[in-house]
C-alpha cells in the first residue's frame, strides 16, 4: 500500500514539474494542480497510512489515524482552490490583454496589441457579479 501511495505521489510530482515547465499558461496551471495533489497526498501520508480507522472517536476503535495532517491538508485543499482560481484569472487576463498565453516575458508578443482608443475606462463592467443591487 505504501508503495502505491509513494509511487502515485512521485508520478504526480514528476508530471506536475514537467507540465509547469511548459511554455503556455494552461499546462502550467494543470501542472500546479497536479503538484498540489501530490503535495497534499504527501502531507497526508506523513501521518502514516491506516485503513478503516478515521479520527472520529468511537467505542470500537483502539487506534486512530493521525488527525493533524488531515486537518492541515483539508485547509490546504481549499486554499489551493483559491490559488488556482487566482492563477486562472491572471492567465486569462494576460491572454485577453496581450493576445497570447505564453508565460515567458522575453519572447516577442506575436499578436498585435489592442488599440487603446477602442477600450476606454468608461467601458466598465455593466453587471457586477456582486449581486443585483450592485447594478446601475
Amino acid at each position: 500500500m505504501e508503495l502505491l501511495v509513494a509511487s502515485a505521489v512521485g508520478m504526480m510530482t514528476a508530471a506536475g514539474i514537467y507540465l509547469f515547465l511548459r511554455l503556455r499558461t494552461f499546462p502550467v496551471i494543470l501542472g500546479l494542480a497536479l503538484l498540489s495533489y501530490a503535495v497534499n497526498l504527501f502531507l497526508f501520508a506523513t501521518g502514516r497510512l491506516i485503513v478503516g480507522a478515521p479520527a472520529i472517536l468511537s467505542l470500537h476503535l483502539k487506534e486512530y489515524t493521525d488527525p493533524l495532517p488531515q486537518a492541515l491538508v483539508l485547509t490546504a485543499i481549499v486554499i489551493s482552490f483559491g490559488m488556482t482560481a487566482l492563477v486562472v484569472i491572471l492567465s486569462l487576463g494576460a491572454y485577453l490583454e496581450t493576445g497570447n498565453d505564453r508565460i515567458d516575458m522575453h519572447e516577442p508578443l506575436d499578436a498585435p496589441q489592442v488599440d487603446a482608443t477602442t477600450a476606454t475606462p468608461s467601458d466598465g463592467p455593466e453587471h457586477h457579479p456582486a449581486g443585483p443591487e450592485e447594478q446601475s
Partner: protein
Amino acid sequence: MPLALIAALPFLGALFPALMARAGRNTCAGVTGAFTALALLGLLLHAPAVLAGHEIVQRITWVPQIGLNANFFLDGLGFLFALLILGIGLLIILYARFYLDPKDSMGEFYTYLLLFQGAMVGIVLSDNVLLLLVFWELTSLSSFLLIGFWKHLAEGRQGARMALAVTGMGGLAMIAGMLILGHIAGSYDISEILKHRTEIQASPLFLPAMLLILTGAFAKSAQFPFHFWLPHAMAAPTPVSAYLHSATMVKAGLFLMARLWPIFAGRPEWFYIVSTVGLLTMVMAAKIALFKDDLKALLAYSTVSHLGLITFLLGLGTKAAAVAAVFHIINHAIFKAALFMTAGIVDHETHTRDAKRLGGLMTLMPITFTIATIAGLAMAGIPPFNGFISKEMMLEAAAHTYWLGNPWILGVVATLGALFSVAYSLRYIAHVFLGPARDDYPAKPHDPGFGLWASPGILAALVIAIGLFPMAMAGWIVTAAASAVTGTAVHPELALWHGISPALWMSVIAVSGGALLVALHAPLERLWLATPKPEAKRIFDALMRAATGAARGVTEGLHNGAISRYLTIFSVTCILAGAYAYFSGTVSAGTRALTPLEPVPLIAWFALVAATAAVVMYHHNRLLSLVLVGIIGLMVSIAFVYLSAPDLALTQISVEVVTVMLLLLALNFLPKTTPKESSSPRKWRDGIIAIAGGLGVGGLIYALMMRNFAFQTISAYQMAHAKPDAGGENVVNVIIVDFRGYDTFGEITVLGIAAIAIYALTDALLRGPANARLRGWVPDLKRAGDRHPLMLVVATRVMMPIAVLVGIFIYLRGHNDPGGGFVAGLVIAIALLMQYMASGFAWAHLRQRFNYQALIGLGVLAAAFTGIGAFFNGRPFLTSDFGHFYIPYLGHFELATAMGFDLGVFLTVVGAVMLALASLSLIARRAGETVNRAPMSIDPREDAAEASPEARPENAPGTDVAPDGDGPPPAPEVR
C-alpha cells in the same frame, strides 16, 4: 517617570505634528516641543538620584528566549547624553519653527525629528545591547529621512543615501560585535557585560568583537576612513545639521565607545587603534575644514575633527583623558549647535553660505556676529570660553602619553590639530563677519527675529558660563558622567587657569600659528587647490556602482522575466538540495511493516497512474487533459476515503467539481490546444528534471511512511482532549475549528482575499484592452443546440433543496462526524452552481439576493466574533466552549461555540467560490453571452403564448430582455 516612557515619549509625540500641521506653525512646533519638554522633565526628575551615583533601572521582559529584553538603565553617562539630546532638541525645535520655509512640510519635519530623537534617547537609555541595536538602526533610518528632507535636491538624496549606507553597514558590523560580546559575557545586558571585563579580555574573540564594534562606532561618528559621509549630509536643512552633528547622531558612536570603555580601555589594541584613528581624523579633517568655503562644509569637517579629538581621548584609556572626553562632548555639543545655527541664520538672511561671497556682516548682523564669535572662539579653544578648558585637558593628556615609546609625537600632532582648529574657527569669524561690508550680497542682510537667534543665544550664554565657572556649571555632570564611564568615582577639577603647564605653551603655539594661517589663507588655498586629493565621494560612488551592478547581474541572471526559467532554477535547486542531503547522510532500512495490498486501491492506482501519464502525453489537447486531471482528483479522493480520511475525501471531491468548472469556464476563452513548441533537448531536459523530482519526492514519502514517528506526535493530546475540552468527536474538525482555529481563521481570510482579488482583477481587466478583444469575440467552438436543456433545468430545480439540506446537514454534523464548514460551503456552492449551469449564469444571478463580497466579510467577521466571544469568559482568543441543551420535542443537543466559527468558515467558502466563478462568467457576459429570457431553452409557456409563425432564434445574442422572473431587469449592454 519610568525610563521606558521617557524613551517612548518622542515616539508618541511623532504621531502629532502631522495632525497639528493644519493648526498652524506655532501649534505644530508647540506640540512637538511639549513632548520633548515632557521627556526632559521626566529625565530631570531622576537627576538627584543619578547625580548621587545611583543607577535607575527598569526591566521589561520582551523576548527572554533570545536574551532580548526592554531593559533600560540610567547612570551619569546616559543622563548626560539624554540631557543633551532632549535639551538641544528643544532648542532645535524652536529654531526650526522660524527657520523652515512655509513651503516645507513642517509636520513631516517634526515627525522625523521626533522619531530620531526617540531613537537617540533609546540608545542612551538602553541596558540591553539588542535593544540598543534596534534603536541604533532606527537612528540610521530616521536620520536618512531627515538628511533627505529636501527631496527635490539631488545632493540631499545622495547625502541621505550615503549616510544610510555608511552608518547602516557600520551598524551591521556592530550587531556582529555586540552579539560576540554578549556571547562571551553570557548576557546581553550592558550592566552585566561591564562586569565581565576579565573574561572578555581573555577571550580569543576579544579582538574581532572590538574591531566590529569600533567599525560601527567609527562609521557613526565619522572617523577615518568613514568620515566622508558627514560633509555630504550637510545637504540637510540646517536645523537637522545642527542637531545631528552636534549633540546626537555622530555622538552615538562616542557614546558607545564611552559606554564600553571599562572593558576595552587600557588594552594596547584599543589604545593604538582608537587614539591613532582619532588623532589622524582630528588633524586631517581640521586641515580640510580650513579650505572649505561653504560654511556648513567648514563646520562639518570641524565636527569630524572634534569627534576625532574626543575619540583620541577615549582611546588613551586614562581617567584624566576620560574626564576630558566627557567634558569636551558637552562643550562641543553646545558651541557646535550654536555655530550651525548661526551658519543657518547667515544662509537664511543672505541666501548664501559661500565664505567667498560673504564678509563684513559684523555691522549688518551684530547679534549674529556676537553669537558666532563667542561660539567660534570656544571652538578655537580661546579663553575664557568653554572649549578652551577641555582643549587644554586634551593637550595635557597628549603631552603625557607615549606612542610606540615616543614621548613627544602625540603632543606635537595634537598641537598641530589644535592649530588647524584655531585657523578654521578664526576664518569662520573673519571671512564672514569681519572686513568691509560688501554691496553684492544675494539678499540684504539683517539680523533675524528673536525666534531664530534665541536658541543659539542661549547656547552662547552657556559657552561663557561654563568657561567662567566650569565647576559650578558643568562640574556636577562631568563628575557623574566620567564616574559612569570609568566605573570608579572620579573627582575632576575643572578650572580656567591651570598654571604654567606644557599644555598652555602648546595652546599659545596653536593660537599664534592658527592666526598666521588665516592671515596666509589666500596663498595657502592656491597651494591646496593645486595638490591632487582623493575624492571620497567618487570612490564611494564607484563602490556603490560596482555593488549595485553585481546585484543587478545576479538578479537578472536568475530573474529575466521568463517564468519557465525561474521554475527550472527553483526545481533544480530543490532537487540538488534534496540530493545533497540524501547522499551526505546515511539511510537505514525502514522499521514499519507494509500495509497489506487490496485489489480496490490497486485499481484506483492504475487509473491514477494511467491518467497522469496520459495528461503528460496529451497535454496539447487542453480539454482532454482537463478531464484527465479530474480523474486524477477523483482517484485522490478515493485514496482519502480508503485511508481513513473521510473529511479530506469530501473536501477533495467537492473542490474537484468547482475547480473543473472554473477551468472549463476559463478554457472557453483560451486556445483549446497547446502548440508544440518545445525543442527536443528542452523536452528531455524538463523530463529529466521532472523524473528526478518525482523520484525524490516519492522516495522521501516512502522512506517516511516506512518509519515510526521520531517523536510523540501532538495528535495524542488532541485525540485525548477533543471530546472533554472541545465537545467534538470528529477530531479533524475539532482541530480545524478549535485547536488550530487561529490557522483556519487566517486561511479563510486568505481565501476571501483571493476571491476579492479575482473580482478586482476581472474588473480591471474589463476596463483595459481586454474589453475590446472581448467585445469582438468570435466563439471558436460550436454552441450546443440547447444550451439550457429542459431535463437539466428540471433536475437541478429538484436537486436544489435537497443539496442545500445536505449542505446544512454536513455543516451540523461536522463536529462529531465527517463534514464541517469547509465541505458544507463547497456543497452549497455546488448546489448554486448547478442552477447557474442549467439556466445560464446571468439568469440565475438575477434571482439571487445576496452579495458575495458581503458573504465573505460576514464569514470572516462571524469567525472573528466567535473568537472574541472567548474574551468575555476571560479566555484567550478563539477558546471554545460547549454545552448540552434540551430542545423541546427534539431532545438533547450539544452546542459548541466552535459552531459559530465553523459558520464563518462556511460563509466564507460559499462567498469565495461563488465570487471567483461569478467573476469569470462576467468575462463571458462581456463576450456576448446574454441573459436568456426563459429558464430553459424551450419554454412551454412561451411556445403557448407566442404562436407567431416566424421562428425566432432562442436567446440569440443581443436579445437582452427583462426576464419574467422577479429580479430587476439587466442593464442595457453598451455597445
